[in-house]
């Protein structure tokens, strides 16, 4: 089923968000969605963007999956569209702590072989993540000619604000067709970034520990790994373009129900990611796309086709 929702996570990435005069300083990080299908699990929670920027923004994430409606090789494929609009932001607390917060709103749909359509709409799982800057930052206004490193570690929690419908885990279709996991989930995260002149490279690793929800369903824990590179080009002093390219991977452990393993729910997927962010003064407009390179989700019964994301952030 799955795979679960986790997959989508990737989409969550975002491009570096940029301050008007310290563009190259931002590494972007994304924080992904959890579980395959993300739909299932609260959608991609991207928390990323420039490590040192504070912003509020809106992001749209569209993900396309197809999953097998049945257990046989000739069972029909059904297409699933996961759509998410999320409000998100990053705020400093003190000198070294950053709080990321994200609230998604999902509108997912899928059409079965008999042409009946199923739609689920509503608030997804809210996520709050606190990062600690392990390395001291040089002030933004000082333009350094040496490579600058950023390293952050974080912990977070995903709240069960999205509804979980047990009916959607029955049958053989993607169990991640959900607004939320229905569980309190915990996130451990680490981000690393290095910037030098107009170039940047960022890497992130995070692990989501999921807990059993009230329907006795437990989505498998999930790893997200990603590396992104980017370069910023200045069109004018107030306008810049930052194309980026990256690779990401997501790994899902098996789901459990009533503490019994649910077969065919583990999975892995590898993505290539392309993005472009445009910055104008305090505004950042970005688009990115993730294309799967290799995947094995739910024993091949779920396939992720692509993810796109579009966002507008305002630095604060």
């Amino acid at each position: 089923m799955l795979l679960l929702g986790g997959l989508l996570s990737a989409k969550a990435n975002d491009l570096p968000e940029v301050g008007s005069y310290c563009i190259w300083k931002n590494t972007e990080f994304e924080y992904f969605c959890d579980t395959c299908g993300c739909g299932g699990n609260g959608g991609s929670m991207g928390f990323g963007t420039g490590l040192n920027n504070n912003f509020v923004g809106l992001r749209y994430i569209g993900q396309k999956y197809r999953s097998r409606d049945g257990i046989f090789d000739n069972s029909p494929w059904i297409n699933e569209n996961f759509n998410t609009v999320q409000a998100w932001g990053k705020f400093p607390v003190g000198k070294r702590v950053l709080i990321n917060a994200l609230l998604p709103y999902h509108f997912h749909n899928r059409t079965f072989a008999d042409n009946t359509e199923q739609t689920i709409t509503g608030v997804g799982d809210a996520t709050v993540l606190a990062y600690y800057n392990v390395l001291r930052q040089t002030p933004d206004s000082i333009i350094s000619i040496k490579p600058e490193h950023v390293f952050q570690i974080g912990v977070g929690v995903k709240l069960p604000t999205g509804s979980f419908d047990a009916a959607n885990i029955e049958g053989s279709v993607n169990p991640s067709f959900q607004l939320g996991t229905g569980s309190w989930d915990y996130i451990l995260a680490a981000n690393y970034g290095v910037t030098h002149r107009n170039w940047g490279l960022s890497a992130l690793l995070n692990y989501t520990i999921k807990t059993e929800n009230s329907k006795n369903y437990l989505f498998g824990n999930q790893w997200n790994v990603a590396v992104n590179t980017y370069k910023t080009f200045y069109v004018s002093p107030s306008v810049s373009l930052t194309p980026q390219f990256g690779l990401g991977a997501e790994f899902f452990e098996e789901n459990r129900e009533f503490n019994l393993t649910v077969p065919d729910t583990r999975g892995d997927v590898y993505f290539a990611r392309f993005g472009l962010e445009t910055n104008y003064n305090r505004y950042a407009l970005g688009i990115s796309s993730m294309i799967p390179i290799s995947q094995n989700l739910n024993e091949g019964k779920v396939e992720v086709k692509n993810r796109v994301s579009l966002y507008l952030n305002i630095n604060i």
Partner: protein
Amino acid sequence: MASAFIIKYQKMKFIYKILAITLVLTVFVSCSSDDDTATELTGENSVTIEFDNSVGSDDLLLATSSYTNSQNETLTITRLNYIVSNFRLTNDQGETFTYEKDDSYFVTSEETGNTEVVLENIPAGTYVSITFGVGVDQEKYLQGAEGQGDFLTVAEETNMMWSWQAGYKFLNFEGTFTSETVTETTDFKVHMGSHGSSLDNYKEVTLSLGTDALVSDEMSPIVHLVADANAILDGAHKLSLSEQSVIMVSEEKSPLVALNTASMFTVDHVHNGSEHSH
């Protein structure tokens, strides 16, 4: 004095910090560990057994698709009915619950879409395996026509009887085929049964469920079985339709069909819970 107080105060602040971190970690760890307080299963509920017919790893589609078996014969299946009976469930303690015998005879039929067997009032428990028969056992048959209850009517209506004297057809498998030597599309019929009481082709099957099936007042599991129709002629025993396209009362071939049929079942998965959409 004041400075000592400040130092003490800072120390305490430090201790509070440590305490706070410890508390957060504790919550984190305790929330993420599985709470395995295995809740006691009580009461009773139904267990549904779905017989999902396939041909190899493809869903069986009657009359609309054909497939070629290992004997190079190409079959189009138009009927697949069989009798399943004498259900028993074994729990994780090794105890076996036997379903009431008089209620334990069912016909599953691909053409009517009636492929689910619902066993009612199964006592709560964690079930790990299922046993059932394919066909009707001699004990039941020897109870005579009046001993069969409603099942006699069910069997007649689903083409699962020859006549009372000849007995039940345990399996009614029909369609058309072609092969290297039979190039014209030709009907095949495989009707397997016990042939009165002279030849006993009743067989029992025991399957491990893979995932435990949990039964309680709140939980009614579905055991999703796959029955691979290809095994009937192309299982451990190879039966060529080119050689014999109608297999009915055959002392030589019927027992092989019975063995093949009993081996066609596998457990695909078990759904636990109460909210089933399928």
